Structure formats: structure tokens, C-alpha cells
């Protein structure tokens, strides 16, 4: 046997260094598994940074909550005072009596009681009429535009990915950004930053058959070693379209991130009652990461179902209520931890919907809609201008009043202290979203 059990002895070695050195080592042509591989099993010996040691700026976190499918903005932030709205929506209009008033003739969907509470506390900013010029009514194209903050076809990086790359030198944890879910959104795609995707914390482990403990440990060891070797197969990149190196690098980072997470996650207990919904549980996982010592600065949550072409009202109210209650629980949890002011949540959707309802008590794809900014540093209340239902574009859709990229620019500049030009490629007038 190549190893004795006692060779897994503790050997303090920074794991980041271990991976890098490991690759270099194999690259030098080594054949037998080197000592550095053993360090990976020595989970407890690693230095872990503590959040309390971070500066206020470094404690700032961005949470993005994406409403997939195109949420109907007009039945979310409702122009209850506008008769043209009621005329366009004979079966779908929500009246002033049941909606939750925000002032200025606008009101929240009746199901959004959680977000109304946040609004009343001054923790919710509503940016009205957010969109972009020459809007696409394709889900995919419009999502890509929002994710990439670019009109380029087939963009390869997202705006958050570029933000991560721009700030990589400040913080190099594998967990500086995390996606709560199985599929990584284009927003997080970067040139140089690994972003873990985590469904649930307990399941985020590399399992090994536990019946024979020695063999189980050797499976993990062999896994790491083969990934390391094939990561070094960069020389053969052209032969495999570069995929071999990509797969193995992800495999290595994934394994290392499981070790980090299981250490950091010990001792988390939600300080608020989260509803039993997927979006609430994703936000609870985000709270867990944020309150750990992993240095997480970005969390991404996606929820879908907003493509309400038929029988919209029950479906949309349900979804909005679910999102709204989850956000309230999230901020209650963060408040107990003293982190509510560090964490800013951005809620967006790829487009609003057609002003006039269709024949199926639903709405077809439209254009501009509201964006929500919650929590950290936010100036609560209404921002920007509500587009007029009386003055539509040629297609019968709302005209946007605020470019979504100026919302991003405000977050990038005011919460991360980065020049928006470095991320968005051009300047946008900042909005007074933050106090």
C-alpha cells in the first residue's frame, strides 16, 4: 500500500497554497502522490479569518434575487390612482382598497405584506420604471442583457463576475461569492473568479463509502490527486477544447470549498423563522454564509415562475407573497446578527409585461418595471419616475425612465467603492439610492 494511515498526520499548510503548489509539482513531472495531498485531510489546522476583523467596507454584502420569467411590474407596484391602468386590465386590475399604499398614487401588491413592513421601516427602496433602450421581449436575450449589463451578443462575463475580478486582489476566499442553487447565472460568470454553487449546506460534501474508512479516505485522496493531474493537462487543452482543465479545476476548487464550508458552517442557527419555501431556504443559506467567517461578499438567489401568460393573478400574488415573506425573514435574521445594514439586496426581473391584459387573464411580454433595493444603506422610499400607462411605445408597452445599469453603477460605486466604468465599460449617473 502506498500510504500508511499515520501519514495523514497534521501538517499545517494553507490549502490555497497546497492546490497551487500541487499543480506546479505535478507539472514538474512527479509520479508518486506527494506529501502535500495529505494536508488536505487536516481540516482543523487552518487559519480562518474572522468577520469582526474586517473593515466596515469589507463587511458589505450584495445579495441578488432574480425573479425569472418577467414579473408583471404593474401589478407589483400598482398605479392605483390611474384610470388608464384599470381600463387596460379589466380582469387583472388591483384596486386601491386592497393594495398596500406607498404614496404618490402607487401601492404594493396585496400579497407583499413582508416588503411593506420593510418599506415602512425605511429598509426598502423602490426604483420605478427600470429598463433599457430598444427593449428585447425575449426572455433569454433580455436576461442576458441584464446579467451581462451589455448588449453584446453571447457575452461571456456577467456584471458581478467582472466586479469580482476587479476586487479579487482584496479578498481571495473561494467563498467571496456564492450561488444558492444548481445553475450558475451569467451575472456571476467571470474571467478569473471561482464561484461555488450550493444547494444546501449539509449536502455540500464529497461523499465516500463509509463502510471501509481507510478506503473512503483513499477515495477522497485519489479524487484530489487525479483532478490535480488532469488540471495540469493544460498542455492538452486544444485536444479537449479546454474542457479537461476546466473540469478538473472546478473539481479541485469544489472539494476545497466543501472543506471550508463545513468548518465555517458549524454553529449557525437561523435567528428568525423562515417560511418553508425554496426562496426562503436559499436566503437562509445566504444568511448562514454571511454570518460565517468565509468572507462572503455576494450571494445570488434565483426564483422563477413569473411568466404569467394565463390566469396571472393567483400565480403572481402567490409568488410575490413568497418572495416578500422570505425577504422579511432574511432581514429579521440579519438584524439579530447585527448585519442588516451590511447587506444590500437587489431584486430584478428581465422585463415587465404588456400593459393591456391578453385574452387568457394573463399578460404577454413587456418592458420596464420596478427594481427593489433592500437593506444595507438603502434610502427607503420611491426612486425615479413611474412610467405613464397613458403614454406607451409603439408596441403598447411602458417606456423606461431609469436605465438598469445606473442602478448597478450606484451599487458598484457606493457599496463596493469600485469605479463603475471598470465593470460596466461606461459611466452612468449614480442614483441617490443609498443614504
Amino acid at each position: 500500500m502506498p500510504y500508511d494511515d499515520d501519514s495523514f498526520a497534521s501538517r499545517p499548510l494553507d490549502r490555497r497554497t497546497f492546490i497551487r503548489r500541487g499543480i506546479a509539482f505535478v507539472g514538474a513531472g512527479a509520479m508518486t502522490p506527494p506529501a502535500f495531498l495529505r494536508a488536505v485531510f487536516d481540516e482543523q489546522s487552518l487559519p480562518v479569518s474572522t468577520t469582526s476583523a474586517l473593515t466596515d467596507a469589507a463587511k458589505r454584502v450584495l445579495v441578488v434575487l432574480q425573479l425569472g420569467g418577467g414579473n408583471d411590474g404593474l401589478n407589483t407596484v400598482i398605479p392605483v390612482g390611474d384610470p388608464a391602468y384599470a381600463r387596460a386590465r379589466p380582469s387583472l386590475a388591483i384596486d386601491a382598497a386592497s393594495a398596500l399604499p406607498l404614496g404618490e398614487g402607487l401601492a404594493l401588491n396585496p400579497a407583499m405584506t413582508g416588503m411593506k413592513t420593510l418599506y415602512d421601516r425605511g429598509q426598502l427602496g423602490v426604483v420605478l420604471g427600470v429598463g433599457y433602450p430598444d427593449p428585447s421581449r425575449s426572455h433569454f436575450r433580455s436576461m442576458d442583457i441584464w446579467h451581462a449589463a451589455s448588449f453584446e451578443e453571447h457575452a461571456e462575463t456577467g456584471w458581478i463576475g467582472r466586479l469580482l475580478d476587479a476586487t479579487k486582489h482584496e479578498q481571495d476566499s473561494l467563498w467571496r461569492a456564492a450561488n444558492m442553487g444548481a445553475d450558475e447565472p451569467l451575472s456571476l460568470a467571470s474571467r478569473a473568479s471561482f464561484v461555488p454553487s450550493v444547494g444546501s449546506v449539509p449536502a455540500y460534501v464529497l461523499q465516500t463509502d463509509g463502510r471501509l474508512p481507510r478506503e473512503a479516505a483513499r477515495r477522497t485522496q485519489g479524487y484530489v490527486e487525479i483532478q490535480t493531474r488532469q488540471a495540469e493537462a493544460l498542455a492538452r487543452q486544444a485536444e479537449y477544447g479546454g474542457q479537461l482543465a476546466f473540469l478538473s479545476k472546478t473539481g479541485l476548487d469544489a472539494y476545497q470549498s466543501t472543506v471550508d464550508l463545513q468548518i465555517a458552517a458549524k454553529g449557525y442557527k437561523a435567528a428568525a423563522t423562515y417560511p418553508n419555501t425554496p426562496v426562503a431556504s436559499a436566503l437562509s443559506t445566504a444568511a448562514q454564509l454571511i454570518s460565517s467567517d468565509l468572507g462572503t461578499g455576494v450571494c445570488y438567489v434565483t426564483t422563477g415562475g413569473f411568466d404569467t401568460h394565463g390566469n396571472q393573478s393567483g400565480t403572481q400574488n402567490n409568488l410575490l407573497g413568497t418572495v416578500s415573506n422570505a425577504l422579511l425573514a432574511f432581514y429579521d435574521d440579519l438584524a439579530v446578527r447585527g448585519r442588516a445594514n451590511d447587506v444590500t439586496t437587489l431584486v430584478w426581473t428581465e422585463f415587465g409585461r404588456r400593459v393591456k391584459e391578453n385574452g387568457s387573464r394573463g399578460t404577454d411580454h413587456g418592458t420596464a418595471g420596478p427594481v427593489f433595493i433592500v437593506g444595507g444603506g438603502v434610502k427607503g422610499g420611491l426612486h425615479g419616475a413611474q412610467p405613464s400607462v397613458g403614454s406607451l411605445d409603439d408596441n403598447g408597452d411602458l417606456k423606461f425612465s431609469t436605465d438598469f445599469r445606473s442602478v448597478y453603477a450606484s451599487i458598484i460605486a457606493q457599496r463596493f467603492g469600485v469605479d463603475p466604468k471598470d465593470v460596466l465599460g461606461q459611466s452612468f449617473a449614480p442614483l441617490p439610492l443609498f443614504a
Partner: protein
Amino acid sequence: MALNGERAKIRHLLRRTGFGATPAEVEEYVALGLAGAVDRLLAPEQVDDSAVEAILAPIRVEALQDRQALLALWHTRLALTRRPLLEKMTYLWHDHFATGVRKVGNPSFMLVQNETLRAGALGRFRDLLLAVTRDPAMMVWLDNRQNVASAPNENYAREMLELFTLGEGVAYTERDVKEAARALTGWKIVAEKRDPQDDNPYPTGVVITPKQHDDRAKTVLGRTGRWGDEDVMRIISERPECAAYIGRKLWQWFAVPDPTPAMIARTSAAYFADDTSIRSMLRVVLLSNEMYSPAAYRWRIQSPVEYVAGTLRMLGLAERGGKAFRDTQAMGQVLFDPPNVGGWPGGEAWVNSNTVLARANFANDVTRIGRPGQSVDVAGMLRAVGATASAAQVVDHLLDLVVGGDVDSGTRGVLIEHLGGANHFNFAQAEKAGTLQGVLYLILTMPLAHLS
């Protein structure tokens, strides 16, 4: 790497056109030669698959009422079918005409759609497109059953032009979307309960309600007439952009990531020469030089469905098909439940920390010790073929089975070391220590094993 020799080419062909091949299948197709293998793959009706159908029949009855049975039915079929390309194309069309059971609700609608896609998978694209347009599950999924003359619902028309036939913004305008939607008005689903206890009525067809159909003239892609759905699908499928859109997809699924305009022109020519024939386009791709060029070799990242189906097939674990959806779900994919009408993004999007861990954990699960049917008995498998003499023999046999042998000497060295090294190997001891199971785990988790 260049694909040298007919055997290597046929193994490559089988990786792309199927879901992992068993050693017996490899021999069967190698005996036919490359051209013969392509002929066999393209003529599934000539391959007797009745033994598999007999196994599937009782699962099908359950699948009419139950979503998990619906998943079990297809996963089991993928693990057993003798018509690999037919299944690959059915899977491709499911991804292309992506429809989700979550909105459709009724599993029998999804089953009927799956059978419609299989029946039309290799036929004329025009026929397939019309069949999908009138497919009950699709009519629920993209709301065409609610599309009526008095208030058109343009959901299906838009996605059909953007995703099913031409590509976003290619050759059509917002006006074409609206006009095509009018041509598709008035269709209703007919479904019946075959048993009073049924929760899920079976769709028997669709009918048009003349009063709800917009019978006036429409102009679609520059052609004006009192078009109905069949006319619109014909007009669209006659467009060169449609042939190019479908041809590009076939090149990318089966051959290379970036087909050139000249390659696409070849599939388009086959498409038009044979009345929009999918089979003719496929024949061009599968017999092309590009298909076997270095650029075509092992660049495709297998989807979870492909990885799981291939593993179950190669290891003889079809029994696991009943719960295979849990395995693919952890890796980010559930059949009949695409993320949206655009299908699965695929490629590198399959790979993130969560999904690579799930793949490794699946490999761990199918190589656990002592769970017949759920995990493989590696020692038994090796004994059956007489590969027990040395660590190298064990490793080479398993590498050949899973990845067709092509692996760097460094990785091969690690695998031999896992078995105790070249000089200290003892089959019985390796079996007892679990390292035979372990070495297969390491092979299934190699980055190379995720590429096809």
C-alpha cells in the same frame, strides 16, 4: 488527438450518438464497419427492441398517472434501448422543444409528447414541427390552447420562431410574431378519462373551433394568405434560415462546436433535397470528415442525463433507472422539467461546484460496496471477463469500458497505485479492501469521463 482507425472512430460515433455503449454493443457496431454502423443507427426501425419494450410496458401504465414513473420510464429506456440514436434524437428534441411538466401538470400529456417526439425524431422537420404545434403538452406549456381570434396569445408563436425554427431575431419581426399567432388561433385539446378513477385524462387529440380561429389574411415572413397552422409551419420550414438553424444544432450536438457556413450549407442541401428530412441531415453529419477530426474529439461535456444513463448502461445498472432522476436532479437536470422553454443551457453551464460534487457523489454511490442493483460488483464484473491477473489488467479493462482507454500515464499510474501498485497486487485482497470498487469510482470521477 486524432481518431486513428475504424474502431476508435466507431467508439467516438457511439459516444456521440448514444448514451454509453456496452462492450457487446461496441463489438456489434465495429463488425458493421463505420458506414454500416451509421446505417444501423439511422434505421432504428430495423432493430428489434421488443424485449426492452416488454420491460417498459408496465412502467408506461403507471407513467400515465405519475411523474416519478414517467421519469423512471425514460431513464430505464435510456439505460436499455437498442436504438441509441433514436433516443439521442428524442432527447435532443425534448431539449429543443423544451416543455415542462410543472406547468403542464398532467404526466400523460408529457408521455404523449415524448412519444410524438420519438415517432418524428428522424422524419421530416416540417411534420415534427406541426406535430409539436398541435401537441397537447405544448399547447398547455406555451398557452396556445388559450390563443383565440378575439384575444390572441402570442406566447407559442414567439418562442416557435425564436427557439424552435429560426433563432432570435433571424428573418422575422415583431409583426411576424403577431401574424403567426393569429394563424394559430382556435385550437383546443381533447382529453378523456379512460377510467373514472383517473386524475389525469389522456389526450386523444386536438380540434379547431372555427368561431375562435382567425380566418382572415395574415402576412407571415412576407407571404400573405388566409393561413392556418399547417401553412405557417410549411412557410417557416421552407426558409433557408430554418434549415441552417437546425443544421447548426445537429453539427454541434454530434460533431464540432463551431460548424462553418460551408458545413451548414451541406446539411441545408440535404434538408431541402429530401423534403426537410432530419435523417438526411444527420447522415451528412455522421459520415463527414469533420465528425472524426481532432476538433470533434471529446469536447462535449456530457449532460447529467447522458452521464447517468451512460454509467447505468455500461455498468449494467438499469435497475437504478427507477430513481435515476434523483441522481440527475442533484447534478442540475430533471427530464421533463427544463429550466424554461429555451431548454438546458448545456456545455460549461453543467459544471459548477455543486454539480461536480453531485457527479462525484453519484459515482461514489454506484461503486458502494455490497448493494446489488444499486451499485456495481466490480470484482464479479472483472472475474466474468478474466481480468484479474494484475493491477494493470484491472485498470486497463475498466478504463476501456468507461472512456475507451484514452488516458494519460500519470492518471493510469495513480489508478494502479490505488490497487496497491504494480508489484503488490492481489485480486482477493483488493476485493476485500474495497479498492476494486474504489478504482472504478476514481475512473468515473476523472474529468475525462465527463466528456463525450
